[in-house]
């Protein structure tokens, strides 16, 4: 027993955490990442690699259901935490460790999962049915197809644990059959294997027949805008068509999380975060880590003027890298022509080549750190929301015909702020007054002119 406990203790020093960011809770996610870094923990890329599921924020109904499904995919020993108050992050992580190393508890968890292969008891079942019911009235049932399999975005087939296969089969099978019988559908004729429809065929961009798969990207995916789901039709790794939507939060965050977070600092944090995501996706871990440290230092409240030098060095390093130039060559996000408005042009964001955008982000961050104020008047809340909305609308067209690697880089290069869009959708034409937009601006990070006091 002593050895087992020691192994568990040792294992817990390298805990892998799968982070789910609810739109609007980006700062909580960043604070969590900083805490993981301090502890030497790793953020997991997929549920199979995770011990701990950390949900940052209060997810809405649909996102909550996705979290539950992802939770089912953690192999175990596993535990989950909901992070809503930044001050409590260390305490909650400590509690999570206690839970992970508690063998009795983990054994009980494992046993209860094996038992749930009996069809009658299973909360996920209820979730599946709820969703099914909710969608029944909806005329557009494109997303229904995947709610049966897996919405987690990690893989299209859904996942199961050894000894639980029957449950998985039952689920997928039931959902899909249900669809067929109710005549909603489009796939009454499809063959199912373990509840998953076989991949269909279709001509690819070169006119060769190739399998067609429907794969949702997001919402649980690292280096991906919070809550964003892109339903992709894939041939090989090429996106044939894409549908975009956002799974919103249950409520806007109310707590102002970063101490001393004036608008320039928030903007700087956001710019660094965008750089982190893009660099990480480009596979340049060390540069991403540098950007991450600068971001976390700024969020932690250091004097940002001290960071100007380091930001400038990072920018020059990025600018000089031949390999990065090569990998990002020819990747452009033509935001200006994609959106119909002039707002995208008026902002201080450059458009076009994503490598230049990255460099420009770092240059702007350096500038902010240097002077402590905006060079160009930042967008108002409503403008930022409108801009994000336009980019989101342009996304399907942007992604069509790209491969997954390109698509991921393009999405990161857009620097989408889903928080402003998600809340924008809830209350359209919201021109920014009262508490809510204030909170939104502080978390979305797209600075609100009205809040700036400089």
């Amino acid at each position, binding site marked *: 027993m002593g050895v087992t406990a020691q192994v568990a203790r040792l294992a817990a020093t390298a805990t892998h955490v799968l982070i789910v960011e609810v739109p609007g809770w980006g700062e909580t996610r960043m604070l969590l990442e900083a805490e993981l870094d301090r502890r030497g923990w790793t953020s997991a*890329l*997929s549920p*199979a*690699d995770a011990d701990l599921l950390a949900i940052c924020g209060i997810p809405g109904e649909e996102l909550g259901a996705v979290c539950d499904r992802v939770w089912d995919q953690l192999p175990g020993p596993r535990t989950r935490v909901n992070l809503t108050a930044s001050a409590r992050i260390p305490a909650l992580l400590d509690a999570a460790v206690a839970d992970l190393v508690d063998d009795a508890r983990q054994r009980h968890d494992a046993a209860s999962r094996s038992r749930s292969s009996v069809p009658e008891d299973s909360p996920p079942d209820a979730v599946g049915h709820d969703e099914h019911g909710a969608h029944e009235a909806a005329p557009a049932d494109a997303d229904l197809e995947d709610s049966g399999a897996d919405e987690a975005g990690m*893989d299209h087939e859904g996942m*199961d644990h050894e000894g639980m296969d029957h449950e998985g089969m039952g689920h997928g099978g039931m959902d899909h059959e249900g669809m067929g019988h109710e005549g909603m559908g489009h796939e009454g004729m499809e063959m199912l294997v373990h509840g998953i429809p076989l991949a269909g065929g279709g001509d690819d961009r070169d006119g060769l027949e190739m399998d067609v798969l429907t794969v949702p990207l997001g919402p649980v995916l690292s*280096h991906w805008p919070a809550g964003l789901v892109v339903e992709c039709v894939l041939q090989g790794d090429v996106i044939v068509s894409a549908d975009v939507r956002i799974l919103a939060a249950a409520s806007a965050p109310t707590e102002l999380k970063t101490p001393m977070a004036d608008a320039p600092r928030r903007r700087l944090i956001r710019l660094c975060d965008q750089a982190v995501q893009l660099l990480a996706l480009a596979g340049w*871990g060390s*540069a991403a880590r540098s950007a991450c440290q600068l971001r976390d230092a700024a969020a932690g409240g250091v004097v940002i003027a001290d960071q100007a030098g380091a930001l400038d060095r990072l920018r020059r390093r990025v600018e000089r890298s031949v390999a990065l130039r090569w990998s990002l060559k020819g990747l452009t996000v033509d935001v200006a022509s994609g959106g119909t408005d002039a707002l995208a042009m008026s902002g201080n964001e450059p458009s076009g080549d994503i490598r230049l955008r990255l460099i420009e982000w770092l240059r702007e961050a350096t500038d902010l750190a240097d002077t402590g104020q905006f060079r160009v008047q930042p967008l108002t809340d409503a403008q930022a929301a409108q801009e994000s909305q336009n980019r989101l609308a342009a996304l399907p067209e942007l992604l069509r015909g790209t491969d997954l690697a390109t698509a991921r880089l393009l999405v990161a290069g857009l620097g989408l702020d889903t928080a402003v869009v998600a809340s924008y959708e809830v209350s359209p034409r919201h021109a920014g007054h009262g508490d809510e937009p204030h909170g939104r601006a502080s978390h979305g990070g797209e600075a609100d002119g009205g809040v700036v006091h400089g």
Partner: protein
Amino acid sequence: MAARLTAESFMADVIVQVSPAWAVLAPPGLLLFALAGAGLNSALTARSAGRPFLSGASAPLAQVARLLRQRRQVTVAADVLLWRVGTGGLVVVALLKILVIPLGSWTLADLDAGVVWFNTMDVMIWALFWLIGWGANSAHALVGGYRFLSLAVAYELPLMFALTAPAVAARSLRVGDVVAAQQDLWFVIWMPIAFIVFCGSVIGFSSWGPFSAAVGRDIAGGLLTDVSGIDRLLILTGRYAVLTAGAAFAVPLFLGGGAGPLLPAWLWTIVKTALVLAALIAIRHRLPTIRPDRFAEVAWIVVLPVTLLQVLIVAMMAKGS
């Protein structure tokens, strides 16, 4: 063999085949190297994250403990048999590779075509990575498998010709003969391009650093997306093991085998292997990942012709001497 035993090469470079019983030492040796490599890697990561260098060095042990404790998971409708062949196969292939690598003057298998044996083993890696991607029956893993294959198509031919160069110079495919032929001058000196291409290919077949697109962050870990517990441990160990085997093979091929002052030959082999391995691991922390589709162009238009040119030069010099 008689030609080898001439006066100038009778010293330490006669490679003797030792009893197969010594093979029991091969797995622990390889795993120790793999562990040390993983330790160096996480130490470098820790340093760049601002944590103490040594705090990272013990991370692989924690990782092993974590993965041993984790439940193994299968996806729905997974091709379990082929998946397991892929996950378990990497370590096996790495072991088969080091069979022909002499430790000082001792080797486990003094094959007539040791160089070809090594090449055969690295082609097996194609199959293994593909099976890992295929077996999970999930989109991201499959994309990872495709990515590995497209990378392999780019690195394999240059690798074959890079392996050819020392063999041509030594006029033998026997690893022992290649070592003996470096008595006067290490091959790394007069065939540097072959050496660089070889090291790049080792990074490629280990799906490591700049060539790690198959396990990329942009596809949620790719080949590793759906593996957990012991399966994940086997794959991660296997990657370090093939990286180690590749580094170790560079020693007899380009770095004069066990040749060196003061230290015994076997220790020189180990020291050189460790240095090459450390360099390969450090590269990961300097370069971004290269996209396989972009790399293919360069591999075929630049790297392959340059490697062929290297072989041509080596062949002409070998003929002339």
